[in-house]
């Protein structure tokens, strides 16, 4: 087991955002968290990456309790997140953004190899390498965010809404790249509103509702689950 959350609760002031989340991610998997707006998907991500301290519960990563570690310490242990939406550095060029992804690393050769890999996955980024991140289109920024997270060479890649605000065509592409990344050996945990895509790509998935996990299963199981179809896939 690569990542394990047991009974994690989190509050924003008086509002409890997570009511005891327990989930696991195994090595080599793509795991999806789906749910409506405000269900606690992004909050769960923030708990895992360490941006928000949790109120109770435990987070185990790679056999180590990381509950109390700072975000940068978690990155060093192989956990890297691509933030939601426009979470790139707008004033840095594409290249500088990618270098930022490798901020914690010292192995020059490894960094160069990963840079090459990212440019192979996203040729568009190679074309724009000297352009400031803020001048890229929404789709390119999303690619840059994913590519930058890959530059940390994570054991577990966390993706927060990789399809947010993208055209349907691009959503397809970004998901096939995620599958490709996974095939190359990176475990992926992703949060999505686009349940159709997420469930068909994921090995396993969890359904979140108001800060609780209400359903869990393989991607295919959930894709054919009546309640899930009705609530998230728009099929009556």
């Amino acid at each position, binding site marked *: 087991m690569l990542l394990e959350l047991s009974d994690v609760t989190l509050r924003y002031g008086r509002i409890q955002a997570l009511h005891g989340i327990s989930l696991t991610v195994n090595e080599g998997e793509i795991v999806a968290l789906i749910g409506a707006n405000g269900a606690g998907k992004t909050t769960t991500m923030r708990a895992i990456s360490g941006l928000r301290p949790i109120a109770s519960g435990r987070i185990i990563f790679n056999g180590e309790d990381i509950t109390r570690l700072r975000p940068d310490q978690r*990155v060093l242990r192989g956990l890297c997140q691509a933030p939601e939406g426009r979470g790139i550095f707008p004033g840095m060029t594409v290249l500088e953004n990618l*270098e930022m992804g490798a901020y914690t690393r010292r192995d020059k050769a490894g960094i160069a190899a990963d840079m090459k890999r990212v440019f192979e996955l996203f040729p568009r980024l190679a074309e724009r390498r000297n352009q400031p991140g803020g001048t890229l289109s929404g*789709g390119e920024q999303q690619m840059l965010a994913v590519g930058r997270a890959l530059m940390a060479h994570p054991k577990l890649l966390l993706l927060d809404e990789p399809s947010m605000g993208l055209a349907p065509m691009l959503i397809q592409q970004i998901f096939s790249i995620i599958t490709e990344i996974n095939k190359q050996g990176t475990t992926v945990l992703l949060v999505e509103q686009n349940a159709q895509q997420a469930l068909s790509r994921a090995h396993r998935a969890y359904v979140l509702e108001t800060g609780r996990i209400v359903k869990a299963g393989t991607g295919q199981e959930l894709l054919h689950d009546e309640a899930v179809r009705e609530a998230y896939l728009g099929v009556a």
Partner: protein
Amino acid sequence: MSEINEATQRQEASGDTGVKAGVQKTEGAKRLRQLDMARSQFATRVRQRWAALPRWVRVATLLAFIAVLYGLPNLNIPFIRTESIAFSSVLFTCAVYVLVAVGLNVVIGLAGLLDLGYIGFFAVGAYSVAVFGSPQSEIATEYPWLALIPIAIALSMVSGVILGMPTLRLRGDYLAIVTLGFGEIVRLIAVNSSITNGQQGISQVPRPPGEIDGERIFGVVSARPYYWLALTVVLICMLGVRQLENSRVGRAWLAIREDEDAAELMGVPAFRFKLWAFAIGAALGGLSGALFASRQGYINSNSFDLLLSILFVAAVVLGGSGNMLGVTLGAILIAYLPEKLRDFSEDLPEYRFLAFGLALVVIMIFRPQGLIPSRRRAVELKDRQEEVTVGG
């Protein structure tokens, strides 16, 4: 993979037309925009020319320029020199302001932390020299000047850490308000504490050592040696800050400024680096305060009011926060103009805050990124504006 590219292009194209339809400019604004475009193209050309010159030419030009800076008090250039006040004294003030701006630029321009209480560090530095050096002070340790400077730097650095520890968890406006409070707290301590001696202040602040033919180099009359000293300190500090800016530390500050959450997610220990920015900024502020006090020979609590703190921020924002050259220009303008205005009328300086206020408003409307903006800052600002339009 080529499908991605096509799709991106398509999305981009649709986004473009959306923006075009949404933004309609008046003729005047268009004119201004064209003027600004021409100006920025000119600036880019100058920058490229400069970069294309051989290294030795650049170094030689820079050295010549520095030589001119050192020669300024003796060159007596018409229009630039001031008539009613000793020019070297004005130059000294400019140098101190530049040092302040360089320090504050680390905090505001590089790390993106809005600090409105920077005067607090300036005051800590000034009082460190006065309290530990003057025979007039209650403590009367009378340390020599050379020992006082490191003490001033250390104490202001410590006060920076003390202020930063609890407050750097706050962001944006909240941090600005807390730092504003800090500046006031330092001033009120200066007013009320017996050590700082309030409005009466402390006199006989030690001057830098050194004698030539039995006469002190740093006397009461001429400000020239002080200017040369301050200029030297400024140049060294600028070099140091430039080095930091281009290091891993500078990269971390940049990332924090652009997107703090994303920086943390990339493994930057944001809190620690913000604290470093605060401490380094405070040290420079303290150093400039110490220089100021050594030249004045006398300080009291009136020297450190809120207005000065706001002027410091104005110097950074006006010049172009994040750009060392920009903030230097901003600081020089803010220190020099009021003194120059005295040449025309004794009353004019009284209106300088009105003039500054107007100038700030005008500049912020037409050049929100400052007179000589940092190129990254310009992109960030645009990005943020777009976010607001998209979100709103």
